[in-house]
């Protein structure tokens, strides 16, 4: 026993004739650094650099086709007094909050439904994914037609059924337009939430439900005490993504309303695009885009701390 201990002890001490370079070459972390480089280069080039450039532009008075000079917080000070900017902030928060809450509710409901033994389960699951598969622009165009002031099939149906006498001005009235784009966003976003939560539901062992049934839990209590708590980590992830995607939404709005009527549906993303590209005020547009960062960081932090608190997932691994 003592012999063995002695031997490993001598083997551990580095032989003196090995150079620092050779030791570095044998180091696993050094090799790991090289393996990381391609990814790091990719991320720096396509993520960090554009982000940094965007933030930098927000501190300049650049215009399309004309490099600007550093102007400090001038763009932000200007935006602070710009009522359209604040309207876009309000719209974005309304759009994100309402759409995310409803997407979560419908998505969870669908996931629970699809987790049951339904006839034609595979087909129904595939159908649920359709809104997610269709390119956003296409579905936006479809909604544009559905909400058309003259040819809307919704207005037509309601009129035929006698509920209304005149076509609904879906995209022409500020509040109608807001609810219409929110509806389109929900339609598009529900499958992502539903399918991800379904995947989460399927990781819950059926024996937990059986145990809870024997413990006397009703259907609601099984959901409340078993399903929901076990699903929270996935809910946190999926809702973070959902909020991020909704907050930064651009395509749907741009195709359906371009931010109108009278800026009622301008989100920060569309407003930034309009100022930066359509009007050519790159610096100002960049400042609007940069102003989204604190909101997004906030959303990430909420879910980060939500996940951190779940001690039951960590602990010793004895399995």
């Amino acid at each position, binding site marked *: 026993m003592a012999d063995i201990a002695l031997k490993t002890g001598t083997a551990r001490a580095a032989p003196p004739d090995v150079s620092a370079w050779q030791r570095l070459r044998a180091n696993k972390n050094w090799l790991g650094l090289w393996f990381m480089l391609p990814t790091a280069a990719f991320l720096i080039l396509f993520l960090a650099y554009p982000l940094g450039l965007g933030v930098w532009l927000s501190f300049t008075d650049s215009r399309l086709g004309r490099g600007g000079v550093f102007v400090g917080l001038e763009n932000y000070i200007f935006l602070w007094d710009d009522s359209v900017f604040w309207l876009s902030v309000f719209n974005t928060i309304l759009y994100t909050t309402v759409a995310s809450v409803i997407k979560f509710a419908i998505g969870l409901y669908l996931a629970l439904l699809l987790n049951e033994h339904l006839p034609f389960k595979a087909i129904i699951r595939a159908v649920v994914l359709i809104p997610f598969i269709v390119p956003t622009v296409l579905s936006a165009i479809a909604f544009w037609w559905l909400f058309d002031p003259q040819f809307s099939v919704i207005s037509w149906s309601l009129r035929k059924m006698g509920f209304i006498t005149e076509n609904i001005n879906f995209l022409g009235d500020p509040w109608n337009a807001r609810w219409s784009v929110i509806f389109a966003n929900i339609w598009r976003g529900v499958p992502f939430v539903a399918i991800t939560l379904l995947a989460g539901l399927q990781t819950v*062992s059926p*024996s*937990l439900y*059986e*145990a*809870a*049934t*024997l*413990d*006397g*839990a009703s259907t609601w*209590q099984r959901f409340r*005490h*078993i399903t929901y*708590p*076990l699903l929270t980590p996935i809910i946190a992830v999926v809702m973070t993504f959902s909020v991020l995607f909704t907050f930064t939404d651009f395509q749907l709005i741009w195709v359906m309303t371009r931010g109108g009527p009278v800026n009622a549906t301008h989100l920060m993303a569309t407003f930034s695009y309009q100022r930066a590209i359509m009007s050519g005020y790159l610096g100002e547009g960049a400042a609007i885009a940069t102003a989204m960062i604190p909101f997004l960081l906030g959303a990430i932090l909420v879910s980060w701390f939500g996940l951190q608190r*779940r*001690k*039951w*997932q*960590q*602990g*010793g*691994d*004895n*399995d």
Partner: protein
Amino acid sequence: MASVLVSDVRKAFGATQVIHGVDISIEDGEFVVLVGPSGCGKSTLLRMIAGLENITGGEIRIGDRVVNHVPPKERDIAMVFQNYALYPHMTVSANMGFSLRLRNAPKADIDTRVKRAAEILGLVPYLDRFPRQLSGGQRQRVAMGRAIVRDPQVFLFDEPLSNLDAKLRVAMRTEIKELHQRLKTTTVYVTHDQIEAMTMADKIVVMHDGIVEQIGAPLDLYDRPANLFVAGFIGSPSMNFLKGTIRANGSASFEGPHGVKLPLTGTPDAWNGRPAIYGVRPEHFVIADDGAEAEVQVVEPTGSETQVVAKIGGEDIIAVFRERHQFRPGDKVRLRPEIKLVHLFDGEAGQRLSA
């Protein structure tokens, strides 16, 4: 506590019938083990008693009540699952108290009952831990604790020890048996391990292909197996079977494969010439000059005993000796079955012959 009566219970999944009319009567306070190879229907039967599976036909009674259509939570039973089914997001004490919380029991009451169960199972230091932070044996105990806390009429165990390592399994076996002796709650325990069945049960139910092969006390099953299946299933190593014919005119004997002559006693002359199967447990062979000739194939000393695989009349048999024999492969020995401990089975139906 209550008795459980299973009468003519059947179960079919679609067109496939998996349980074909099972009758079992379980007395109040009894420890009954359902044992059989995998796929024999023992777990399905347990889940039907629990109410997790519907009953296709027949009747199950718990106490005086027919429970065929009673939902699981009203059956007043508690079940321990093979994978423990502990709620991963609840601490040990919350896991154990969950059923009481659902029933809106007063908090003080829940605490005392959880505490008492934890004391019985040695779980007091772990009450604030989550299942992930426990070892396999501790999780097993929490699962039992969850059952004890409810003080149910019947405990159901579904292969509770099969996820544990061999050593822990033996220890937990003793613990479960002690627990039953202490609480005296009617228990139905499912396992595929006949040693577990033999060591723990008051009464064993041997199941095979959806029917009950035999019901009886462990040693009765060992001493008087009703048929070839039970004879082969109970006991380790398994009983040796030799095919042959009964010879009984005046003095009885058994003509085994290749004309090997084996001793028999108490066989009526009417059975002369009847094809039969001669069963000897490995531990019932003795080395004697008048025994049948056997050629040693493999010798496996385990320390406490010596297992010898040998050929009698061209058939492999296993003999177990308490003594340490120094046989070598190829040695010729003479093995004689202890005549009073021989089992005879019908050559076709496999039913036990001797009275």
